[in-house]
């Protein structure tokens, strides 16, 4: 029943995508771009539990297929991203990852409404989920990994974004202000149609740019409604996220570092610290890369993480090293080794990926 419902949704989404594409292709006054992104992976993994015992597995996978539409008309623009992804197990789900309409008054003022990626840190807005071809490693880092709703920050949100950039020679300042519904009752409850409380989430990101170097910081606050059906989270939690990032991503260099502090404040305060560094250097079509990610959770179980997967492995440190080869602008082939050590287990992975974007 669930399978047929998902298949029905997938068919409807595909038909809607096709209809929009055909309708807009004939409208000469507008500009419409259509994109298809996705990736096919193969992975070998060995997991060793801290309590003892080793499991081995290997599998092919099709993590995402992304149908992307973008239209512009003068200062107005529209963007949507329909994502077919594997939520859990082998079930393919359909997700409207982004759907936003924008009006750009000038470079210093652009207003966007809809569902968009929250302006927290660098990675979340620089590398949308479906575009594996543009990532150096195979997947987005744990901080923003939307797979199984396991990201630590609220990656997507529904509301308003106000953005502006003020260039002054080789310097530039930019700002983003998000006012949105914020989190739902759990990390996998995105408030697409209904906000469970009256309060809104507020996020401010400020950046300074010097040539192509970006240095930024952000502050986010939200009030997470209680889960009335779950005694572990009976009260409203105030979520505070503070972060900083630095990035230099200009050919041939790729350097990103960012870190966040996520606090859930109720009767007690639970603080999670997480961060990543990523570096690569492109030589012709090949980019060797390295990434290190780490997260430190509160010693007591954070009630907000309890319903999803964030804290289930405990504190972790993950190192990835690999090579990305782009034979042309539409294909990327990657080979990667990963070592991830957590309180609960240690995982070693070897993976390869063919990612595309047309």
């Amino acid at each position, binding site marked *: 029943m669930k399978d047929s419902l998902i298949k029905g949704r997938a068919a409807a989404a595909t038909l809607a995508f096709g209809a929009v594409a055909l309708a807009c292709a004939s409208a000469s006054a507008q*500009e419409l*771009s259509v*994109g298809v*992104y996705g990736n096919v992976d193969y992975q070998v993994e060995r997991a060793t539990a801290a309590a003892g015992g080793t499991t081995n597995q290997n599998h092919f996978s099709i993590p995402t297929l992304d149908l*992307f539409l*973008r239209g*512009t008309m*003068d*200062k107005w*623009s529209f*963007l949507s991203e329909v994502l077919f992804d594997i939520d859990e197990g082998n079930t393919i789900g359909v997700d409207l990852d*982004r759907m*936003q309409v*924008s009006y*750009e008054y*000038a*470079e210093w003022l652009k207003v966007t409404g809809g569902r968009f990626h929250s302006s927290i840190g660098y990675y979340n*807005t*620089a590398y*949308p989920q479906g*575009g594996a*071809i*543009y990532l150096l490693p195979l997947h987005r880092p744990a901080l923003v990994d939307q797979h199984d709703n396991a990201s630590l920050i609220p990656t997507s949100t529904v509301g308003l974004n106000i953005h502006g*950039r003020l*260039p002054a020679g*080789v310097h*530039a300042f930019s700002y983003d202000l998000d006012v949105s519904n914020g989190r739902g009752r759990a990390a996998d409850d995105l408030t697409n149609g209904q906000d469970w409380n009256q309060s809104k989430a507020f996020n401010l990101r400020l950046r300074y740019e010097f*040539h192509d170097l970006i240095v930024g910081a952000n502050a986010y606050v939200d009030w997470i409604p209680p889960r009335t059906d779950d005694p572990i989270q009976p009260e409203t939690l105030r979520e505070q996220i503070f972060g900083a990032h630095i990035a230099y991503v*200009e*050919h*041939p260099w790729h350097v990103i570092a960012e870190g966040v502090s996520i606090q859930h404040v109720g009767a007690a305060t639970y603080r999670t610290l997480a961060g990543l560094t990523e570096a690569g250097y*492109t030589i*012709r*079509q090949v980019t060797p890369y390295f990434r290190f990610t780490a997260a430190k959770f509160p010693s007591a179980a954070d009630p907000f993480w309890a319903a999803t997967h964030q804290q289930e492995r405990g504190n972790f440190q993950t190192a990835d090293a690999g090579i990305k080869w*782009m034979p*042309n*602008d539409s294909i990327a082939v990657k080979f990667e080794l990963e070592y991830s050590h957590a309180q609960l287990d240690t995982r070693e992975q070897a993976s390869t990926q063919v990612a595309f*974007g047309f």
Partner: protein
Amino acid sequence: MSHLRLIATCIGALLVAERAGSAAGGFVFVRNAKNDTAQIGKEELKDCYTGKKKSWKNGTPVEIALNAGGSAELKWVASELIGASDDILLAKIKQEVFKGEMKKPTAVASSQDCLAEVKKAAGAVCAVDADTAKSLPDGVAILDVK
């Protein structure tokens, strides 16, 4: 001593000839004549091609007319602006479109297409070969890159 002078003169003449040859076979950027930005820095133009700079001084949105992948024009644009291959520039542009940071560039197949597009769109910028630029149609002007 006179031999050294002769060799130096020959090398100098060769360098001058080489420079003249590259200028004759070079490329230039063109803009719509209504666009009052007649001169632009290379960094700023790179920002136009990669979605960071979204409008000209007069507020007109930047519109990129892009020569086909593999064309001599696009290879020159990529080399001039980001010091890389046209594939890398195209991938960067596609990424910025995907992020929602820039409008998809208009594809042009030839220098004549490029001029027609620039004449049509007030914010358009494109690259043409230097020979074509010698006789630009009304409504199209050179964009001088500092």
